[in-house]
């Protein structure tokens, strides 16, 4: 127990460190950008005086290191921009305030997070299941037509650009067959059915694009595992093939699969830019891209931190999961 606590404690510290590094790196890279963050709030025509005013108001006139510490400080103490009646108050925890969108970054993220999470969870579950199932299926029929066909289909997914897949999906299912809505989002609370109904197509598109790695990884691992002695034992005991494959072999296949899954899911929780765009889903990905294009540093910082948080969290989760999946891989042993 003590050890577990220590392990978790160390990991939490590590996580914090990673988030600090990511936020600092983002900040530093941002200042490598040639663009001036105040430019977007400067107006047209943008005179140097107006630019200076905007910069001052947004706090971009200070040295960037100090801005970074102001940002960190804001998380604990909140921040106020400007003075007088027009001052903008961003109460703690303040992850910055977007002058482009007139809202605290945390609120912006809060608005979009449910959408991104809905998209990511649904899609990743589909691709994980479909991918692994395809891989296992392929492995059991190695070299046969079904194997090649399944692999070809999944590879079409990785080779095809996401945008194309989305567009064709919309054309086919949205217009030609007219079975699913092509855009928009309904919250889960409003109607779980509509929620799923609006997300089905994006889920499938994302799943199609991402399934290949899973299918191929599980196929390869499956082929390795099926030759092991313990599979022979499982068969000798008279276990149905379903159990032999679906339980005894599968568990051994999952180690690399869940690892990639954690990486992909973590990334996806940071937003799936193209899919969100094609299906007009206002998620974190769109928020981040807009932030980049509008040179909206606070949003950029906020979303990056969230995305990094998910990545770290997902990786932490699988690290813990390793021990469950494969006791030999238990950390610290």
């Amino acid at each position, binding site marked *: 127990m003590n050890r577990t606590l220590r392990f978790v404690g160390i990991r939490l510290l590590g996580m914090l460190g990673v988030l600090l590094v990511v936020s600092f790196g983002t900040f530093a890279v941002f200042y490598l950008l040639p663009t001036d963050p105040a430019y977007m709030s400067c107006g047209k025509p943008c005179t140097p005086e107006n630019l200076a005013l905007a910069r001052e108001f947004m706090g971009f006139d200070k040295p960037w290191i100090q801005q970074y510490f102001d940002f960190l400080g804001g998380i604990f103490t909140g921040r106020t921009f400007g003075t007088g009646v027009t001052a903008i108050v961003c109460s703690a925890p303040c992850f910055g305030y977007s002058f482009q969108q007139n809202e605290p970054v945390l609120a912006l993220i809060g608005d979009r997070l449910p959408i991104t999470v809905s998209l990511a969870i649904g899609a990743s579950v589909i691709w994980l299941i479909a991918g692994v199932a395809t891989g296992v299926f392929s492995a059991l029929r190695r070299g046969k037509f079904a194997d090649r066909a399944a692999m070809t289909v999944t590879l079409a997914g990785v080779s095809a650009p996401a945008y194309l897949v989305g567009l064709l999906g919309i054309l086919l299912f949205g217009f030609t067959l007219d079975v699913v809505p092509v855009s928009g989002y309904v919250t889960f609370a409003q109607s779980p059915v509509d929620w799923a109904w609006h997300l089905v197509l994006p889920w499938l598109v994302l799943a199609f694009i991402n399934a290949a790695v899973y299918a191929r990884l599980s196929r390869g691992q499956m082929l390795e595992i099926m030759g092991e*002695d*313990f599979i*022979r034992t499982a*068969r*000798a005991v*008279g276990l149905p093939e379903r159990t032999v494959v679906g339980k005894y072999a599968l568990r051994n296949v999952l180690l690399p699969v869940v690892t990639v899954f954690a990486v992909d899911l973590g990334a996806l929780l940071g937003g799936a830019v193209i899919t969100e765009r094609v299906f007009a889903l206002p998620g974190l990905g769109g928020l981040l891209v807009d932030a980049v294009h509008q040179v909206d540093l606070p949003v950029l910082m906020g979303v990056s931190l969230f995305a990094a948080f998910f990545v770290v969290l997902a990786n932490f989760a699988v690290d813990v999961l390793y021990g469950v999946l*494969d006791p030999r891989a238990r950390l610290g042993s």
Partner: protein
Amino acid sequence: MSEQLLSLRDVSIRFGDTAAVREVSFEVHPGEVVALVGESGSGKSVTALSLLGLLPGTATVTGSAVLDGRDLYTVDGPALRKVRGGEIGMVFQEPMSALNPVFRIGTQLVDAVRAHRKVSRAAARERARELLELVELDARRVLRAYPHELSGGQLQRVVIAIALIHDPKLLIADEPTTALDVTVQAGILQLLRSLRDRLGTAILLVTHDMGVVADVADRVVVLRDGQVVEQNTAAGLFASPQAEYTRELLDSVLSLGSAPAGAVRPTSAPLVSVTDLAVTYRVGGGAPPVRAVDGVSLTIGTDEVLGLVGESGSGKSTISSVLTGLVAPSGGTVQVDGVDIARASARQRRDIRRQIGIVFQNPASALNPRATIGASIAEPLVVHGERGEHRERVAELLAAVRLDPGWSGRYPHELSGGQRQRVGIARALALRPRLLIADEPTSALDVSVQASVLDLLADLQRELAFACLFISHDLAVVERVADRVVVLHHGKVVEEGPVASVLGSPREDYTRRLVAAAPVADPERQRERREAWRALSG
């Protein structure tokens, strides 16, 4: 005799162009114990596997194997599944790789119970517990353990338990007692016998231990090079073997007390000294830690062979792991050549390891499945930067353990259990070690090959004068090779001394039981000994 249960007709098994089994025919009747003996690599395991359709895809099988009127080679999937585990129970030769490493023993047992019986999980668990207790295991702990947390002998008993779950009509047991100390082995054999008596279970017993054959077998089929060279009743075989090979085999059998009582050599300066060694394994899931070794002290002289015997799970392999630095002791000190392993620098450790040769208990998993056996044998040479042509040395080593030097390009899975074990021995000898740690090095070898290997060791020992820690449950073998012997029980040393005195006139109760339990290769004498042992163990 009544109608046969299983009948093999002209069974041939080929791997590509090589024939592993050639036109083998024999029968097993209900309630009969048939022993399949023969040279290592003669096709015993392959034959057994073929009956359940478990050979790899690279094998081709011809002939027929009829069980209860159905040809096992041609039955369809569902029927075969019924046979597997249900009608035929199978004990695999290498228990350490036979269990799924990522599931607890309990899970695997429960699944096996439910494979043929629609019972609740709880009921299945109950059955599993019952079986584990039957094979003399601490069911509470073992059910929750992962395979890698158990010793070789414990795993072997788990595998036996699995095979017995559904009270099969036929039990195929491929070397079921190789990793068991003699007392446990005696218990298991007793169990098999009672199974036959109670349920009429027929047993096809693959073994090289002629003592075991003498103990339980009704009939014996002798295999050599894939062919049946003799079929005989057990009594007949021991009394008047027909085939030349059988005679050879029986001649090679070692039995306790038969070794010439060698002069007790003066003890040389210790190369290895272990003081108050303790090892505790942490196990997951909140279970109490396992104290595998508990205050063991021993020394091995520079040219001494120290036999280490003791009950299965008593910590023998753990001690060897500590010596090789794979397991960190939780107490005590270990000195090799004057260097404390725990405090050695990386350099010193490397130097020490260069001088140690190790034969692992489980040959199957100790060989890299992706490396040819040639590469595996050459590995120590490569690791320690031996220059020059390794191929020659590899060929020499292969020949020394009675393997065809031309096999150096084979992969471990293409070998039989005994062949793999010999590869492990060859690897350990590659560097001409100063200390050899051999964990059950001959457990999978038939007596004739075992004799050669023991000769080899003796020759080398004479030549190189290395120190050796020899772990074995075969007391006759220990008696033959060891100078001194240490008896381990529950992680503690119970007795130690020169071989002749410890095995000849044991002082401790446990040792006495151990000696009494060692089977001898003579059905008559073995029956008497069995009675005696029963009396001793109450």
